[in-house]
């Protein structure tokens, strides 16, 4: 049992942004774990992601490329990784906290009898094993947990660690693996639908997010937020209440069970600021909050606050932006 293995699934040839955060964690742990770093990439077409991952400074990149890994099929991705771990026997496996990654990590920990340390914001290894910090109770409480016995499966929280820079030197060698599950599959994938419809830009990549919540009262006001987002070259996001009500698609949800975002500006409109929501946006550079309730908890995390009704504030905000952006463009 030795070494660190980073595992990441690749969709549409794109290396996930979290990959470089996992590299940071790996570099932090490397001196106390020993045995070097390996990377495993899984998917049906790795494309560009493979070349990028070869720059992580790993001893090698293991490629789990197979048509059956095209879907975010937890059992398949898990079986592929478990077989690889059987051969490499890593001491620490690092997996990104996506819905697929989290489930693959849990299944792997169960199969290997490994200790699962989930959603960590800080992690270190000492004589007593792994000690980590993680938010619990939706982020209201911070827990320090300890897992004495290895191997370990660690799932870092997105944006809790800085993205690492690619390493200098040679690109890592590539080793191709067969997809050889230990057991016949018991779960099966069918038709997949994508919600790209409303032209929703990927909110994880947008530099500006204009986010709406229950206070908007329905789907229509999200059009207004969309106008503001467009002026700022950003995208629209939302709270879970707005998603569960069917006003906007799930892909726009920010928070503990939605996306984790870190834009330059997060403008929250009609969102109360429950810890579960803040868990997904507290890494924003600047947070501005528009809420009619001066006691809304979101103000405690805001840089700028407007106590008011969005129906008055946002149209005027949009018009002022339009005007000012037009004049500054001329100037």
């Amino acid at each position, binding site marked *: 049992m030795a070494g660190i293995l980073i595992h990441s699934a690749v969709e549409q040839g794109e290396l996930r942004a979290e990959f470089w955060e996992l590299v940071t964690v790996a570099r932090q742990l490397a001196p106390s774990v020993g045995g070097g770093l390996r990377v495993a990439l899984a998917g049906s077409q790795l494309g560009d992601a493979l070349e990028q991952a070869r720059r992580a400074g790993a001893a090698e990149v293991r490629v789990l490329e197979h048509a059956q890994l095209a*879907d975010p*099929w937890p059992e398949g991705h898990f079986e592929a990784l478990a077989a690889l771990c059987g051969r490499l026997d890593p001491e620490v496996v690092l997996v990104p906290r996506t*819905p697929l990654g989290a*489930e693959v990590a*849990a*299944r792997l920990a*169960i199969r290997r009898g490994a200790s699962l*340390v*989930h*959603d960590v914001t800080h992690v270190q290894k000492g004589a007593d094993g792994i*000690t980590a910090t993680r938010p*619990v*109770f*939706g982020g*209201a*409480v*911070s827990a*320090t*947990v*300890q*897992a004495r016995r290895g191997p370990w499966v660690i799932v870092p929280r997105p944006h809790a660690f800085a993205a690492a820079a690619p390493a200098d030197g040679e690109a890592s060698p590539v080793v191709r693996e067969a997809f050889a599950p230990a057991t016949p599959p*018991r*779960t*099966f994938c*069918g*038709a997949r639908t*994508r*919600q*790209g419809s409303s032209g929703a830009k990927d909110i994880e990549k947008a530099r500006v997010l204009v986010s709406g919540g229950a206070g908007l009262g329905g789907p229509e006001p999200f059009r207004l937020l969309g106008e503001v987002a467009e*002026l700022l*070259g950003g995208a629209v996001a939302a709270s879970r209440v707005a*998603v569960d009500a069917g006003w906007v698609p*799930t*892909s726009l949800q920010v928070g503990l*069970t939605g*996306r984790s975002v870190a834009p*330059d*500006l997060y403008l929250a409109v009609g969102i109360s600021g429950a*810890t579960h929501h803040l868990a997904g946006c507290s890494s924003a550079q*600047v*947070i*501005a909050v*528009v809420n009619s309730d001066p006691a809304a*908890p979101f103000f*405690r*995390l*805001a*840089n*700028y606050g*407007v*106590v*008011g009704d969005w*129906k008055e*504030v*946002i149209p*005027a905000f*949009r018009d002022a*932006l339009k005007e*000012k952006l037009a004049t*500054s463009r001329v100037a």
Partner: protein
Amino acid sequence: MRAVVCLKQVVDPLTPATELALDRAAKKMKPAAAGPPVINGYDEQALEAALRLRESLGQLEIVALSLGERFHLDVMKRSLAVGADQLVLVQDPSLDTPDSHRVATALAAAIRKIGAVDLVLCGRQASDWDNAIVPLLLAELLGMPCLTLARRVSVQGARVEIDRVLPDGSQTMWSELPAVVTVTSELGALRMPTARARLATARIQPKLLTLADLGVAAAEPPQVEVRDLSIPVAGRECRFVEAADGAAAGRRLAEILMEAGVVRPEGAR
């Protein structure tokens, strides 16, 4: 057909952080401080999934199952009032724990004791520790397949089919029964009980079981121990925009953000 729905009693996740209190010695949340507990939201949605299944199948026996240290009966009995046929509670001090193995072992034993279970419905995660691991462990212990993050659950013959929520859409998935399925909030909220049903279920007593009844041995040390809990004081200094009315505040906010360089003309970044 028989379905078991696993319900966890948790501290109300909407309790404001300022009202939470910790028992740092026991490394637990102080239960009284946060008011009455609730059924974990996703587990309520799992129960709603079971009720919808019963409607579409015409017949389904629903057993609600919960493990914990101490139960608020009026909270847990809501499951009966909305239509569960039976409520089984396993009570033991060792069950108020973030140790997923302990919980899953006891749940598996209880499900075997209930017997002839075709479908186990769980929430996607418990809102206290957000582990999302008990259902996977449970499936492993029961030798069942596990489907996760269902926004819709249906049963045709010996097969369960779900719509699994993905970050960018959804995907149909299926497996043979018996199976474990976890439910996410997109499925929709649990229906309200009628006043009549509330009264009718007031006298029904849950079935109480002990770990000894289930043949579950004393707790082994957990793989992951909790060393400390604290309430972080995170915060930013909020500059409130002062203005005569909402519209003026909106204009002022635009100015402030531009002056601070947060908002720049598109393309200039």
